[in-house]
């Protein structure tokens, strides 16, 4: 089936070359990082995780887009998602590749990475994150590929795929929960030490993931004969707006807890994030995120506006940027501010850090592109 990815028009090959170039530049930068150490990043003793880990946090959510479509399709036989399902599953694969790539480039000694398996440590959440991420990758790979293979010969997918699908739905919840647990179980990091961390991860995942998927589907519609279907799009927009409302509600719960209780440890990170103390570029980003989130809700809550296909992409882009700033940048830097000595340490990603991250994304998008190409080619083949 992969051979279908070898035939494409010049636009397809242009896109592939672009991704390869980004991967090449970032890959070379990674070699530079391997030689010099993580000193080429903006990280420090006090802010010891940054841009790389932020990508893991955010892309775990994007991987979840699959479950928001798979669940209604399989559990409630909601047939409108028929065309979208395969895109969702393949997007999950790319997103998880980005997650795992982000962890690898964040390691100080990546060549010893297999120590996590050689010396398995069940009390470490990172060990479980490795397990659930790899598991989810494998599940989606098997389900997506087998479904496609059978579709090619005009057959229903085999029976044994069904249990895997059900498992993947439960598993999707686990990847967020476990990734959230990376943060929420740490004593002394006030911003992360909250029971709603995992629910926040789920809520932001369930809005950002489908939003990106819907945007991607719109692009795919432009460049191919693929059609998501009006009803599917409407339904997805509804899912996105509900999840976004819950996401913002949970964040406001944090704000209430911090400021009504007046406990300094809870207040400080939020004050920093919104510029009330040690204001820097992070505050600008957070207020931008606030404005964009508000804009997206205004565009998505009233049904009239939500169903406006011209406005929808803009609302989705605003939502994606807002959630990215909040859950990626804000969550990480806010968690490390103030530091354990109630002090403030500046962090901003450096150019090499951004180049390496871009390469990780390019690798994930490359895989998604190939898989989408295969899926669409087979769809066209069977339709003809």
């Amino acid at each position, binding site marked *: 089936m992969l051979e279908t990815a070898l035939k494409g028009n010049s636009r397809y090959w242009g896109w592939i070359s672009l991704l390869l170039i980004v991967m090449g530049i970032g890959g070379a930068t990674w070699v530079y990082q391997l030689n*010099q*150490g*993580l*000193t080429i*990043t903006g*990280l*420090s*003793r*006090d802010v*010891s*995780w940054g841009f790389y880990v932020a990508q893991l946090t955010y892309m775990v959510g994007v991987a979840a887009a699959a479950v928001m479509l798979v669940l209604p399709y399989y559990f409630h036989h909601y047939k409108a998602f028929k065309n979208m399902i395969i895109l969702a599953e393949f997007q999950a694969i790319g997103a998880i590749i980005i997650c795992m790539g982000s*962890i690898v480039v*964040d*390691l*100080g*000694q*990546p060549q*010893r*990475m297999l*120590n*996590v398996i*050689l*010396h398995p*440590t069940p*009390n*470490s*959440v*990172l*060990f479980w994150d*490795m397990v659930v991420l790899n598991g989810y990758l494998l599940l989606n790979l098997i389900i997506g590929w087998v479904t496609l293979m059978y579709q090619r010969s005009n057959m229903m997918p085999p029976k044994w795929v069904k249990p895997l699908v059900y498992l993947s739905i439960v598993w999707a919840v686990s990847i967020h929960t476990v990734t959230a647990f*990376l*943060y929420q*179980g*740490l*004593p*002394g*990091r006030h911003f992360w030490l909250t029971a709603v961390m995992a629910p926040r991860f789920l809520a932001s995942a369930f809005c950002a993931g489908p939003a990106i998927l819907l945007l991607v589907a719109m692009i795919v519609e432009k460049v191919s004969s693929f059609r998501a279907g009006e009803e599917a799009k409407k339904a997805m927009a509804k899912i996105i707006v509900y999840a976004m409302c819950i996401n913002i509600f949970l964040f406001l719960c944090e704000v209430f807890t911090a400021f009504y209780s007046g406990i*300094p*440890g809870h207040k400080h990170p939020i004050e920093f994030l919104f510029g009330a103390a040690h204001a820097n570029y992070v505050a600008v980003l957070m207020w931008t995120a606030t404005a964009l989130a508000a804009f997206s809700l205004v565009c998505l809550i009233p049904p009239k506006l939500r169903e406006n296909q011209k406005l929808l992409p803009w609302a989705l882009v605003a939502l994606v940027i807002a959630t990215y700033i909040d859950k990626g940048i804000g969550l990480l830097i806010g*968690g*490390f501010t103030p*530091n*354990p*000595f*109630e*002090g403030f*340490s*500046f962090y901003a990603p450096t150019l090499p850090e951004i180049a390496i991250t871009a390469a990780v994304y390019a690798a994930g998008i490359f895989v998604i592109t190939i898989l989408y190409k295969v899926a669409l080619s087979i769809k066209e083949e069977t339709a003809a």
Partner: protein
Amino acid sequence: MQKTRRTFLKYAGVSVLGLAAMPAVKAAASYVPHQVHEKPDPRELHAKRWAMVIDTRRLNSDEDMKPLIDACHKEHNVPKIDGPQEVKWLWTDTMHAVFPEQSGEFQHAELEHKNFLLLCNHCYNPPCVRVCPTKATFKLQNGITMMDMHRCIGCRFCMAACPYGARSFNFKNPRPFLDEAAQNPEYPTRMRGVVEKCTFCSERLEKGQKPACVEASKGALLFGDLADPNSEVRKALKENYSIVRKPGLGTQPSVYYII
């Protein structure tokens, strides 16, 4: 029994697998540590839970504390790196930084502007050990929170987990930041990409010596077994008022400060 081609292939497959596994099993067997051939140093000092009591009344100025820090950093080849990517095992900071949330609005004038020593607390219930995905940081039988630099993958989860900021990461190769003449040839340096911290001088205790900073402190630092009610540290804690850093987090630090 009828020998079909299928059963033949099955047996052939299993035998090949067995042959292939043989060297692996052999290799694994030879890696089993030969216990009889290794033993602890007879000079080793023993304790159930090593602990340190810092008598802050006797450590008032930088001149009091600098020799301790120098002794530690020289003993362990800790590099001098300036800026936010620094590496440190033993250092000082002000009262508000060391004991946040433990001081009222108005403070004893002298204490408020005084510096205190900081190091790994060797917690009884350490979050860093809980989160490490490779057991590169772990508890020794004697209560020391130990680092295995050979195994550390540099994920820095322990740095996020430590509420005391006790851990440093080698963002770059530390060797160029060490004065070669002042190096301790008995102790290794580190390589880039691993996390390090105070080890309560585990290597000295095993040779029957007290930690380097304790030795240099002229009695201002006490070192002993917290599990032994008759130990020097327990006596000092019985007779003096002491505090630990961030007790509310439940980590149960083994470094006490007599105020």
